[in-house]
């Protein structure tokens, strides 16, 4: 049975007011985390309430499955969503992710979760229409659970441990499923060494998505030049430092790459070679004061082509795409983990 402290409240409305008054929500109503609902999540995953998901290294906080389950219920998760919440948070606790820095920074990033593998279809995830918005129930509630966990277990509430100057809307929920069915590209997780057919999560400390559009060419190079222009814009306007960038490519643009036999690897290579600026370009956007005597020095968006996360997602029509910049250079690195809990997610 659950071991957390419990409260008896008069009715549903009283629950909402109680949680809001304690600053335990993201401003939206929550599903009441009753002991029965929390137990259902834990039982499906066959993990005990005290099961240790990991330890937050800066504050030495032991993160247990029950606390994740309580927040997941609040976010609207069903039991079958819970293994992905656990795996995502476990990935966030890995040292390269630098969870405390990423969630406390004035830079205001959100945690982007990218789902790959058969679990997407089992849970009805949709990597097509409105992929970066609330595209489906599963990705929406999993992303929201991550945010509630950060708030309630690590005090990453606005003005508390979360010192974001602006933040961005992805902080409500930022979880997408790759559209693996409508592409011949390798899934992101497989490119990051997860075996074929295994479900996995990739977490990235991510800035807000920046939409691009180029419907006027079929050339892969020209399409990528538009993505690269946006990345270079991020380097000029935001941070010049290299890190994990993600680019999201919907079908209307993907078809041109596929017809030209461009793999994700070709894309990564092209972006690696072209997404570069010189420090003196800061002068074009009001940052002359920090150019110093290094004006001719070249900075790359990626120090390794594998730092680019290429994701196939988006609705069928529209020559759009998105660049999702890193929080701040390589301080936080994207982490990919196979789904290790007991959902039936083997190869089809």
């Amino acid at each position, binding site marked *: 049975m659950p071991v957390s*402290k419990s*409260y008896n409240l008069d009715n549903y409305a*009283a629950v909402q007011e109680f949680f809001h008054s304690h600053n335990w929500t993201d401003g939206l109503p929550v599903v009441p*985390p009753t002991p029965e609902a929390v137990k259902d999540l834990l039982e499906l995953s066959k993990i005990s309430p005290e099961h240790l998901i990991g330890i937050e290294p800066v504050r030495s*906080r032991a993160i247990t499955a029950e606390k994740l389950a309580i927040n997941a219920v609040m976010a609207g998760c069903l039991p079958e969503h819970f293994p992905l919440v656990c795996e995502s948070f476990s990935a966030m606790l890995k040292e390269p992710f630098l969870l405390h820095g990423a969630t406390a920074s004035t830079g205001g990033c959100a945690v982007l979760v990218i789902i790959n593998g058969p679990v997407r279809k089992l849970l009805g995830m949709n990597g097509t229409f409105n992929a970066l918005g609330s595209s489906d129930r599963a990705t929406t509630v999993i992303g929201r659970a991550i945010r509630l966990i950060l708030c*309630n277990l690590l005090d990453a509430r606005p003005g508390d441990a979360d010192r974001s100057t602006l933040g961005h809307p992805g902080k409500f929920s930022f979880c997408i499923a790759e559209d693996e069915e409508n592409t011949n590209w390798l899934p992101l997780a497989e490119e990051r060494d997860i075996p074929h057919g295994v479900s996995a999560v990739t977490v990235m400390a991510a800035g807000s998505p920046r939409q691009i559009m180029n419907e006027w060419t079929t050339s892969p190079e020209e399409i990528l030049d538009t993505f690269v222009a946006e990345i270079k814009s991020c380097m000029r306007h935001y941070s010049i430092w290299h890190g994990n960038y993600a680019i999201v490519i919907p079908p209307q643009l993907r078809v041109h790459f596929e017809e030209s036999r461009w793999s994700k690897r070709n894309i990564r290579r092209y972006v690696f070679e072209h997404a570069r600026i010189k420090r003196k370009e800061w002068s074009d956007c009001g940052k002359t004061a920090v150019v110093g005597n290094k004006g001719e020095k070249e900075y790359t968006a990626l120090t390794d082509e594998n730092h680019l996360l290429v994701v196939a997602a988006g609705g069928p029509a529209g020559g759009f795409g998105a660049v999702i910049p890193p929080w701040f250079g390589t301080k936080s690195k994207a982490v990919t983990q196979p789904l290790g809990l007991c959902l039936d997610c083997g190869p089809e």
Partner: protein
Amino acid sequence: MTIEVLDPTYDGDTISFKYAVGLENLKGATVGIISNGKKGTFHFFNALEDLLTKKYKAGEVIRVIKKNYSVPAEEEIMKEVKKWDAAIAGVGD
């Protein structure tokens, strides 16, 4: 009928922290300042150091800078802190 709900917050801290006993005054004291290394902190800590030595007559002001402003102070800094009478640390941007 009431609804029973579970507490979603962290409740695992078993060690309670308490503030160190404050100094009566800073006269002759060794005061350490831990900077996160952000550029904007330098002017602020320069002014603070002036204040500590000129107005409050601190004996020595030691300045250390973390290697990475997004992670806690390194072990070496934490060892140094034990030699100080007072330490000033905080988020600067």
